[in-house]
């Protein structure tokens, strides 16, 4: 894709969006999608830190079979805090609200999202939700687990369930606003000539995500509201002793919360499509299949919620159907993975930081996805349900998938966002450390889970043989923590001391690389008109580079 300038008049040096006002008000009252993305970047990073501290406490506690420093009650609160903060305040908004917000208008060649004020409102709603979350922590936390299962959450828990529900409710609406914005923007604000099949796969993935958001999120909102109502007024909706049906809660909860997994992973898949293509210098193999597999995952994702409820007392016939459909989700997921690997094949692969993250994503997502098959088949799920196997599985998908995609995307578009390059060697080091730390943390959990360690327990003194796995896992989590903290340091360092980035430092294709780094407030000085197909990498240039590399290799090896 390329912009054909309407006139050849010499363009004045663009004033970047970062220089368009330096006051606090110019940030807090902005309608600029790029500034809102930066606001989101700061806020989700803070919540990632909060959730990470909770994760560290969990891992420390599990070092000894009799626990280290937490009581039963406080342990419950810590893992609940970890789950709620990481899911509602980090994983769900991370890629759409930061990278999607920043990039979708740039990628579709628009000046802004369709509804800038709604976008800003979404950030404020998110911050309101976050503030409530912090108040919950200060008031002593909540101990229901992030799943809020009834009747415990609605009748018995003495912790701050009401406020937490309000926080999750608000966070949901923040993502609904973002979703509505993306849908209207992607449908109606594409640059002239930018047809659906010229859209980057990042945009396709975000479109699918937005559809899931508007179809699923309201359901969790109303469900949590009902839990709150039941808690306050003692109406029997979910609590059996009041005549309600706890399985109904699980149906409603997972109707959203399973698709929510795809809200987290689909945008990451979009990021990976961009990275793989840019650093292999080849168009994505089977573009149409990858694009439609996003929609396929979005659609199928709504039909599999029952696989969280195999042992809940749900009808086994229903379970069989849910199990079968869950297997089907593997098809669009596998299409993506196969097509990414086919893209790399014979490509001129450049192992820059984002590419290492992308390769890490493929490896971790593969393990996460394949272990999902064990859990979606009913017979094995009965053995593995509520064990650390499940914990390891969803961390491989959500952490190994989403956070690898998020960090890869941040490293890829950092020069575009701030106009500075970061030290690439440090980036590569952090990517490798994250990969190693991650596997060291969660691989032992598969084993210990298979051996029978239940999730959400912090004592295992009857099975002291589990301890080595927990020690490995805790060690791994410290390595992981170092890996996650390194980018914070060198990326912040790069803001002041980094080399100035050109408009297209990676030589990548896409409309966002055709404007200045950082982009001007209106994104493009001349509104682009797209005349080329998507992912047009210069084959000759790539080949020349490939040969040049071969020569270098021959020189070195003699």
């Amino acid at each position: 894709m390329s912009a054909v300038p309407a006139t050849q008049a010499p363009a004045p040096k663009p004033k970047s969006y970062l220089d368009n006002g330096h006051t606090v008000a110019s940030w807090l009252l902005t309608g600029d999608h790029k500034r809102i993305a930066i606001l989101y970047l700061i806020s989700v990073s803070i919540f990632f830190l909060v959730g990470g501290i909770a994760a560290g406490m969990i891992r420390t506690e599990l070092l000894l079979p009799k626990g280290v420093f937490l009581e039963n009650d406080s342990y419950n609160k810590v893992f609940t805090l970890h789950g709620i903060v990481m899911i509602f305040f980090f994983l769900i908004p991370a890629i759409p609200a930061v990278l999607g917000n920043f990039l979708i208008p740039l990628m579709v060649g628009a000046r802004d999202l369709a509804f800038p004020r709604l976008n800003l409102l979404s950030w404020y709603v998110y911050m309101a939700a976050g503030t409530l979350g912090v108040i919950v922590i200060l008031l002593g936390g909540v101990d229901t687990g992030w799943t809020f299962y009834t009747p415990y959450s609605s009748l018995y828990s003495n912790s701050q369930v009401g406020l937490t529900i309000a926080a999750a409710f608000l966070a949901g609406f923040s993502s609904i606003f973002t979703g509505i914005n993306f849908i209207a923007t992607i449908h109606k604000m594409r640059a002239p000539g930018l047809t659906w099949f010229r859209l980057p796969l990042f945009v396709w993935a975000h479109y699918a995500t937005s559809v899931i958001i508007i179809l699923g999120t309201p359901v969790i909102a109303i469900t949590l509201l009902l839990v709150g109502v039941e808690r306050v007024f003692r109406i029997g909706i979910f609590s059996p002793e009041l005549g309600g049906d706890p399985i109904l809660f699980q149906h409603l909860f997972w109707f959203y919360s399973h698709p929510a997994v795809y809200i987290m992973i689909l945008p990451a898949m979009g990021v990976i499509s961009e990275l793989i293509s840019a650093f292999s210098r080849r168009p994505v193999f089977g573009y149409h299949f990858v694009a439609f597999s996003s929609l396929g995952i979005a659609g199928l994702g709504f039909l599999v919620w029952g696989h969280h409820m195999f042992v809940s007392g749900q009808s086994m016939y229903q379970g069989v159907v849910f199990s079968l459909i869950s297997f089907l989700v593997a098809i669009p997921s596998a299409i993506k993975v196969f097509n990414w690997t086919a893209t790399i094949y014979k490509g001129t692969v450049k192992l820059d930081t984002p590419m290492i993250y992308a390769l890490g994503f493929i490896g971790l997502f593969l393990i996460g996805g394949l272990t999902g098959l064990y859990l979606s088949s009913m017979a094995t799920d009965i053995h593995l349900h509520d064990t650390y196997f499940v914990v390891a599985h969803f961390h491989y998908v959500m952490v190994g998938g989403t956070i690898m995609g998020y960090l890869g995307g941040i490293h890829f578009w950092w020069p575009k966002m701030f106009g500075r390059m970061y030290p690439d060697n440090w980036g590569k080091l952090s990517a490798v450390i994250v990969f190693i730390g991650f596997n060291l943390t969660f691989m032992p959990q598969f084993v210990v889970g298979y051996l029978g360690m239940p999730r959400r327990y912090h004592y295992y003194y009857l099975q002291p043989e589990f301890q080595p796995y927990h020690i490995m896992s805790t060690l791994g989590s410290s390595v992981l923590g170092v890996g996650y903290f390194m980018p914070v340091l060198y990326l912040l360092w790069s803001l002041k001391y980094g080399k100035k980035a050109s408009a297209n430092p990676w030589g990548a294709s896409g409309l966002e690389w055709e404007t200045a780094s950082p982009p001007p407030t209106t994104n493009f000085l001349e509104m682009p008109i797209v005349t080329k197909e998507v992912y047009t990498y210069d084959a000759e240039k790539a080949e020349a580079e490939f040969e040049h590399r071969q020569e270098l290799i021959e020189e070195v090896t003699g």
Partner: protein
Amino acid sequence: MAAIAAEHAHSHDHHGPLHHQFEDLEQQNEAYLVGMWAFLVQEVMFFGALFLAYTLMRWQHPMDWYFAHNELDWKLAGVNTFNLLLSSFFAAMGVRSAQLKDRKGVLLWLAGVLFCCLVFLGIKYVEYSLKWEHHLVPGPSFFYQGEANPGVAQMFFGLYFAMTGLHGIHVAVGLIVFGILWLMWFFRKPIVTEDYMPTEMCGLYWHFVDLVWIFLYPLFYLIPHP
């Protein structure tokens, strides 16, 4: 094409109904419409979960549901149903006047919508306060002596208040939205007078509120004897 795009790039300076991120009013209106419908889809799912809970409860306790519903006043709610249909008609006529740029017509029809809003909320207030007096509001003061199982009756009234209450909140929001819209037309704000889409979007919201009530009315007030 390029020239058109370049020309439109400058059109965001003036303070008309066009926002700077759009090329022209056409594009803006279409984006608004898509955004509004995406929002309405979200609303369908929002109410949807409640309808699912309702269906399940009624399926499990058909008799109690029937007995409990006898406590509701279908005649009063019938008046409200007619009232909401009328308001929907007013809203549609208001949008029509906005399309024709007939300011007086818009002011008149929207005043009709606002009036119906108030009547609806008034009747709802009467209904709710009667339930309160009869101790039919779920909670510690709930006291039911009818034929239905008291626990199930409380579930019935719980869902009744949850669903009609959520709908009532939407009506109240509609009152605010249409109040603001009416004032904007009254003060000739170009954002509404030069472009019918804001009026149309308010209308869409209002029709959706009507739509929910179309289902709520038979489901709560007209339950047949099983």
